[in-house]
């Protein structure tokens, strides 16, 4: 993976409780067929797959979702069921809300989460970095 560098600033009325980051290449998700199947059901929820079936760039959406889940894992520092964290990314800039299961929120005493996605490169060479803030 190529080295990428970026600086982000973050302001919030409420300080985040946890923060996590993860990066991955979109090419690793290119082979997953979501049109007829629900790949990696341990990882992606039915809602995410349903959402991404209509996305323009499916590998990017899957990659961003996976990175988000990994970032949440790193932020919490504890394993959880990845389907308890849903991230519907369609390429929008800025902070994107993360949908977290109530049980997960209760267990880790968090209320909500947001993620910001950075994409470097294009096509099969694109790399995704996701930073997650949990409040």
């Amino acid at each position, binding site marked *: 993976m190529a080295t990428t560098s970026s600086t982000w600033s973050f302001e919030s009325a409420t300080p985040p409780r946890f923060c996590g980051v993860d990066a991955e290449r979109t090419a690793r998700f290119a082979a997953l067929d979501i049109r007829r199947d629900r790949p*990696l059901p341990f990882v992606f929820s*039915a809602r995410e797959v349903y959402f991404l079936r209509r996305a323009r760039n499916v590998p990017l959406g899957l990659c961003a979702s996976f990175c988000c889940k990994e970032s949440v894992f790193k932020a919490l520092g504890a*394993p959880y069921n990845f389907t*308890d964290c849903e991230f519907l990314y*369609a390429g929008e800039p800025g902070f994107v*809300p993360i949908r977290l299961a109530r049980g997960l929120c209760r267990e880790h005493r968090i209320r909500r989460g947001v993620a910001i996605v950075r994409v470097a490169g294009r096509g099969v060479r694109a790399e995704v970095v996701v930073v997650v803030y949990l409040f």
Partner: protein
Amino acid sequence: MLFYVFAALPVPALHGTQPIPAPGGPGANELMRNVGPKEVAEIRQIVYNYFADECDTDTAKLSDTTNIIEELEGDSLMLLSLLEIFRKKYGLTIELKTLGKHLMRKPANTIGQVIQLTTQIVQHGDNIVNVEL
């Protein structure tokens, strides 16, 4: 705006910890599965072939002591993809949280450890967290 997209999606919410249905193995967690030498050999073969294929190397160059992260540059996505193969084959319904807890207690860094872990998952399912390896 995305909040509205969430609300508009007609898919039923799948949050929670219900096991994911897998082909060929309903109730896999309810009973301990017998894993004989034939199944262990099969698991070994699948794991070796998987890492050889994923890491563009020959199975002859791999051994039980090969470190997946340091020598093969493996990661969590590889492990999850491998888990998916076994889910389809054996109908695994283990939860990722359970597996994660187990891995934090007993990491699987080498191919041999992954084979052992996979065998235990196939055998014990979600009960793996209570199994002393």
